């Protein structure tokens, strides 16, 4: 064995999970800038103009205001969906007749895009915060319900048998077995729902309200073809979506649920 292999090297190397995505980002930005220059397009902004656009939004105090407005709607719609979807899903999963009765209705409502509900939302709630909140609720309540239902139906029978062996009453059975056993799968449903909710809030704000990141995009286009601000809005939406996903992924590391995700 050569001495070279034995001595550990002291030099620091950046980890691949940092190098690879940064490389891709650099290539994309360069390609973007190059394309804009080659085509001499006046309307479509380059990366630097987008950065300036973001700075402009921050200076005017609009960016924070719109982010807060969008997050506010998502929070309301999303938590309402959890409040309704989790109990409903657990109920449908546990009581077979209820599942048989309501599942077809859910399966019909579920594939309707929340965007299709926009006219009805405006009709019922007017141009107010309630309309996008309703749309976000609609978009996230189904994935949450369906995942909670499936979680109960997929419960390992051995857990229920062990629980019945210890003669747990209904409340204890629910609190000590059913809820903890289904929590990992419910949390996965919640993560999917949050992604959808964020997609929908932007779409809803394009039509139903006059604030928020969706509104920013549509307004920047309508009020003077400010495509730098349009793309700036898109970038901010993407970054916040990523941040939301990271937050929920953090939750998946808690001991209460991490047992349910295999060896990650």
């Amino acid at each position, binding site marked *: 064995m050569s001495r070279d292999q034995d001595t550990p090297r002291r030099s620091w190397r950046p980890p691949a999970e940092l190098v690879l995505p940064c490389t891709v980002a650099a290539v994309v930005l360069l390609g973007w800038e190059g394309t804009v220059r080659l085509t001499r397009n006046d309307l479509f902004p380059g990366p630097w103009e987008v950065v300036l656009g973001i700075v402009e939004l921050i200076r005017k105090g609009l960016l924070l205001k719109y982010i807060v407005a969008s997050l506010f709607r998502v929070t309301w719609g999303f938590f309402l969906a959890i409040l309704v979807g989790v109990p409903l899903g657990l109920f449908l999963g546990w009581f077979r007749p209820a599942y048989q009765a309501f599942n077809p209705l859910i399966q019909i409502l579920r594939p309707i895009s929340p965007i299709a509900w926009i006219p009805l939302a405006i009709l019922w709630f007017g141009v107010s915060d309630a309309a996008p909140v309703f749309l976000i609720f609609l978009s996230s309540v189904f994935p949450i319900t369906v995942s909670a239902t499936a979680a109960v139906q997929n419960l390992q029978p051995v857990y229920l048998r062990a629980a019945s*062996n210890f*003669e747990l009453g209904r409340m*204890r059975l629910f609190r000590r077995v059913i809820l903890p056993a289904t929590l990992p799968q419910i949390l996965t449903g919640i993560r999917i729902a949050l992604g959808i909710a964020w997609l929908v809030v932007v779409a809803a704000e394009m039509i139903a309200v006059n604030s928020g990141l969706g509104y920013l995009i549509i307004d920047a286009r309508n009020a003077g073809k400010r495509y730098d601000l349009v793309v700036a809005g898109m970038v901010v939406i993407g970054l916040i979506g990523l941040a939301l996903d990271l937050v929920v992924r953090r939750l998946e590391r808690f001991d209460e649920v991490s047992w349910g995700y295999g060896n990650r």
Partner: protein
Amino acid sequence: MKDLPWPFLREPATKLCTAQCSIGTSSHHTTTMGSPTADPREIGPLAISVRDLWMSYPSQRQGELTHVLERVNLEVREGEFVCIVGPSGCGKTTLLNIIGGFLRASRGEVLVEGEPVDGPDRRRIFIFQEGGVFPWLTVRENIGFGLDRIPRSERDGVIRHYVEMVGLSGFERSYPRELSGGMRQRVEIARALAANPEILYMDEPFGALDYITRFKMRDDLVRIWEAERKTILFVTHDIDEAVQLAGRVLVMSRRPATIQEDVDIDLPRPRDLNSAAYLQRREQIFAAMGMSPHGGIVRE
């Protein structure tokens, strides 16, 4: 050590008869009913009594019934360690599930402690082959699962006692997924014992473990049984396991299954697995199952 609920059983019943039984091979009964009155086992009152049990369920084909159990009779005395062996798929687990109250028989009677069984009961805890511990609870939380009816102040002491008994000290705060398969089964055994049941039903509890772990688990189970003197009804398809563990082995036939032989394993524990007496009991069970320990199936 804790006070034994059955002090008169402190001396294993099997020891009393070793002298008498080692003389000949006449110690086993081929009856499917209880044991003859002269049997020294009978110093314990009856714990489980199964009378004329039949079990069938609808088969894949419409309108037909699959007969699983036919005319099963058995008796287990308090403090006894009884193994049920039989070919796989013969209905051993079904039988144990009926006795445990998880399944209802088509016909017949199951009395436990003199009462008909009508569902699972916390005085009789079932130990599953695999996956019975709750993965969202730590070792100590799992073991404390059945302790909701004893005062909070006593729980820690009970949990500690059984953690030590099954040899899991130092792992109290671990989650099941951080443990090996054998350790998880230890958690389940401790969880069952902590609830202080009268009877343990064990359904191939070591079936998913590797050979060496299984060996160690059997030793420990015998040690625990000698300390706790719970009645144990243990289902396995492993003849060696049955002969190593049990005071009595019930051999089931093929489907529709019945108890076809009742073999006393009247040998002191820990058992010498090479002794003539041990090998003779083992051979007897092989023969009852229509096999020869020297290879091959003698009887179909």
